């Protein structure tokens, strides 16, 4: 098992390569090719990192919820590792989304932080998954840790629709969430490319993290000789 994890499979290289290539392309298009937005000007270009990182945080946390459910059903440690890897990766994307959002907020609204629902719920989501990781650190027994984290991972996922729909549900100053349908065609392309770039990078992150966790668990799951 250790030999397997030190020799990286071809698929992993492909995923990483695709992600990096798309990211390069998306960043170029977003920063230099796409026109500035009419109302907001160039500052709109922050969308190309802000929005994909927000989306992919949601996707990663969704993956945590799904694999938590699978773990509770099957008690297969592999699913627990994927759920854990997804949560940690999602937290990184979530932090990135928050930070870039703040950088965007300053020139647009004049403040680093505004308590609009979308922003607040994104912060709460971040805290939830930090708490998820904290819970894992507070439990020594491997089986209990996996079960309790899975339960919390499912509970925490209740926040995902809140974040996703908050901009529409509550009257707020955050623009309705950006999708390729709500922005102009020339902005669509870099946004889409970067979203896919982030998706591939996220898959690579989760994959890599999962391998590390599995390697950690491998030497724990074999009992000593009788």
């Amino acid at each position, binding site marked *: 098992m250790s030999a397997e994890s030190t020799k990286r499979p071809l698929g992993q290289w492909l995923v990483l390569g695709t992600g990096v290539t798309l990211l390069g392309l998306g960043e170029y298009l977003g920063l230099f090719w796409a026109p500035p937005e009419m109302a907001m000007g160039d500052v709109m270009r922050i969308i190309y990192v802000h929005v994909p990182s927000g989306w992919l945080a949601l996707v990663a946390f969704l993956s945590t919820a799904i694999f938590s459910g699978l773990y509770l059903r099957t008690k297969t440690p592999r699913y627990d590792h994927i759920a854990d890897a997804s949560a940690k990766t999602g937290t990184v994307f979530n932090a990135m989304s928050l930070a870039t959002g703040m950088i965007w907020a300053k020139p647009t609204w004049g403040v680093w932080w505004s308590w609009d629902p979308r922003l607040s719920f994104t912060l709460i989501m971040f805290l939830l998954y930090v708490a998820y990781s904290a*819970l894992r650190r*507070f439990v020594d027994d491997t089986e209990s840790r996996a*079960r*309790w984290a899975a339960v919390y991972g499912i509970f925490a996922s209740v926040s995902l629709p809140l974040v996703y729909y908050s901009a529409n549900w509550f009257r707020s100053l955050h623009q309705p969430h950006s999708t390729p349908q709500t922005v102009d065609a020339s902005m669509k392309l870099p946004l889409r490319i970067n979203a896919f770039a982030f998706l591939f990078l996220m898959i690579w992150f989760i994959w890599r993290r999962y391998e590390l966790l599995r390697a950690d668990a491998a030497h724990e799951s074999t009992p000593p000789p009788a």
Partner: protein
Amino acid sequence: MNATLFATLVAIVKKDLLIEWRTRARLSALVFFSVAALLMFSFALGADIQTMRDHAGGYLWLGLLFASVLALSEAFRVEAENRALEAVLLTPADARAVYLGKALANALLLLLLGALLVPMMLVLYDVGLDGPLHALRLLAVVALGVFAISAPGTLLAAISTNAKSKDLLLPVLLFPLLVPVLLAAVKATALVIAGDPMGDAFTWLSLLVAFNVVYWALGFLLFPSVVDE
């Protein structure tokens, strides 16, 4: 041969309420704590009566939230003390019924606390109510809120009781989960207190109902995974 789900639920609720009654000194300490919290909010914010009136709902819910963390961890300290919960589960009681029973008992306890805190809030923050119907509406909001706190709270208390640094872990796990609930409860309370010209209260109340449905259902389904290794 074993008790049905409902009989188990009733037995657990009865047991928990009986323990609360036997340890009523603990209960009154909890009431004292939440009243002290309400007082501290007014001291911390200065004696501006208009500010206090505007934010009365927020203080009430913060007081209830802090008290609920203490109440919930107490409720599971009792279970963990001699591994009493383990003995209950060995009978073998249905863990889902045990969950419903404990969550219900916790909710009732918090409701009692809320019913005691509401008049305190009315007096301390100079909030007026017009008539018993108004008071009943306020109590209904409090009930919806504390049930939405108790459902995830009971489950997370069961987890944190068995983890390291349990007193620290419970609020870390619980608070972010409850922010949306708190938000809805505070808004609904404020609208009930100050009047609701736009008819917004219904939206917030529906949100509270939705949280209740989701959290109680999740708790019911997931609690066996928490306590059964």
